[in-house]
């Protein structure tokens, strides 16, 4: 399939099941809400070494938040509910509770709770106050700028991690420009994050390594400097490849984000130096969700 001169490979992105939650952070100003959200989702690009993958889903206006202040919705993904619970609690305590004027709420409802305020409350050293309104319990934890308000529990859900696109370009600058345009379009889709810096990863990985201690290693088939050394998937004109990894609360959300990204890239076309779009297909080794590029675009 060729769209506007951009070749779309007949392949699929291979994704896997994860556990995820959405949290809502609020603060007195949008800037402080974003500071807390940025800190909470920092060092969370890949579960390979970060424990979780996280990102800011979108900014929230006062009418969308529980306490009527500006806020941000963040999504966190991990390979298990236990690991997600640890990551959420550590990041809530160190990144949100510490942030001036912040409050923290669950952004999903469900039957599978993970602790928020029910653990963080102990920081209050006995001065914490519980408030129950309806079916929800909140904790008021005294801090130096007043109180940190935190919902008792967040709730996790089954999710999909590792949706991806590979942008094949004739120049590095063209690959970067296309990736930026794609990420901008994908951020408009609800329920997804692109956890890498700016939503983009240049060190795409394959499963396994020649070194037994590593579970993943450089995706040599897409490394342009190895075209003459390895079983490359790159044509001679490809000079740079960038990957966009997508984690989503549902497979539909991941597919919608992939479609938005591909459409944005194709709009730039071959004239912008974009040669093609591919995806990380690991031959079935990685996961149970397959996102076929042609099917998504059709």
């Amino acid at each position, binding site marked *: 399939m060729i769209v506007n001169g951009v070749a779309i490979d007949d392949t699929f992105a291979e994704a896997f099941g994860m556990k995820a939650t959405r949290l809502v952070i*609020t603060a007195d100003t949008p800037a402080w809400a974003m500071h807390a959200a940025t800190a909470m989702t920092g060092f969370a690009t890949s579960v390979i070494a970060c424990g979780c993958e996280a990102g800011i889903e979108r900014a929230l206006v006062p009418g969308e938040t529980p*306490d*009527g202040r500006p806020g941000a919705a963040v999504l966190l993904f991990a390979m298990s509910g236990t690991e997600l619970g640890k990551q959420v609690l550590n990041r809530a305590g160190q990144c949100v509770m510490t942030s001036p004027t912040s409050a923290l709420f669950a952004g999903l409802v469900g039957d599978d709770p993970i602790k928020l305020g029910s653990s963080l409350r102990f920081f209050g050293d006995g001065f914490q*106050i519980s*408030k*129950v*309104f309806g079916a929800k319990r909140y904790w008021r934890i005294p801090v130096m700028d*007043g*109180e940190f*308000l935190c919902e008792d529990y967040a709730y996790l859900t089954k999710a999909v991690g590792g949706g991806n696109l590979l942008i094949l370009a004739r120049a590095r600058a063209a690959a970067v420009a296309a990736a930026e345009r794609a990420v901008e379009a994908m951020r408009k889709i609800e329920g997804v994050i692109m956890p890498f810096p700016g939503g983009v990863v240049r060190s795409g990985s394959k499963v396994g390594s020649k070194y037994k201690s590593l579970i993943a290693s450089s995706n040599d088939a897409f490394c342009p400097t190895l075209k003459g050394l390895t079983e490359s998937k790159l044509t001679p004109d490809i000079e740079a490849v960038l990957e966009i990894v997508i984690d989503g609360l549902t497979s539909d959300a991941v597919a919608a984000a992939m479609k938005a990204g591909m459409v944005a890239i194709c709009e730039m076309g071959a004239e912008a130096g974009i040669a093609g779009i591919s995806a990380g297909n690991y031959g079935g080794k990685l996961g149970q969700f397959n996102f076929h590029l042609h099917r998504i675009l059709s």
Partner: protein
Amino acid sequence: MSALVLTLREPPRQRVDMAGLDPRALAGRRLAEVAAAPVACGNRTLRLDALFEVSGDPIATPDSGEIEIRNASSRLDHIGAGMRAGTIAVAGDAGAYCGAAMKGGILRVSGSVGAFAACAMESGGIHVGGDAGAFLGAALPGERVGMRGGVVSVAGNVGARAGDHLRRGMLLVAGNAGPYCGSRMIAGTILVLGGIGDFIGFGMKRGTILLAAGPARLLATFNDCGSHDLQFLPLMYDKAREAGPAFAELAGFGSRVRRWAGDRGVGGQGEILIRES
């Protein structure tokens, strides 16, 4: 929605115990069976239809049934006591122990209720269009834990000792509250939009008493903690506004309050929050 209607024939000369006449207890009974239900009136036990005209539709489903009590009187005690589900709508006044130990459902009273309404209540909602007597949401006599869940709203005034021994839940008062409001509170939340009597929060251990207007005086055993913007207040206002138009003005309330902590006379860490505009 269809309802089982109980219309009081005339004001009873003695007090009537309405306990057990709730939607779940009467579910599945034909009107004739309901009419024959025993009711204690003074030292006698009467058939229900000796006091009430029974009409309307029998209750089919226990969890969503509705009972209307029309022409009600302040001598009808224990209305909705122990109810677990459904709705009871009272047109007129209700007597003592209205909604006592209630575990679920909704109880609406268009008039006023007597003493000990909502005492030992566990869950559900009680909405009073008029006033409430003393010991609203308190403990049953002899017990040391009061209301422990649910929402009670009173559009008018409440008597003394509202929220005595309150353990959990919300007491919302659109009018004035009598003396000793929130006395011996264990936890929970009381909101008073009108005036407030003396000895507020006497002996309280934890919990929140929020006042729209400052009291004439506070106990000396409450310590000033200063003025603050407390972020839980918008959540509380949102919940309280669900109780009806009597609380609509909360939409304009900000989150700034003066916080007094006590009752330090008993080592308490409760709080009296006084709204600041």
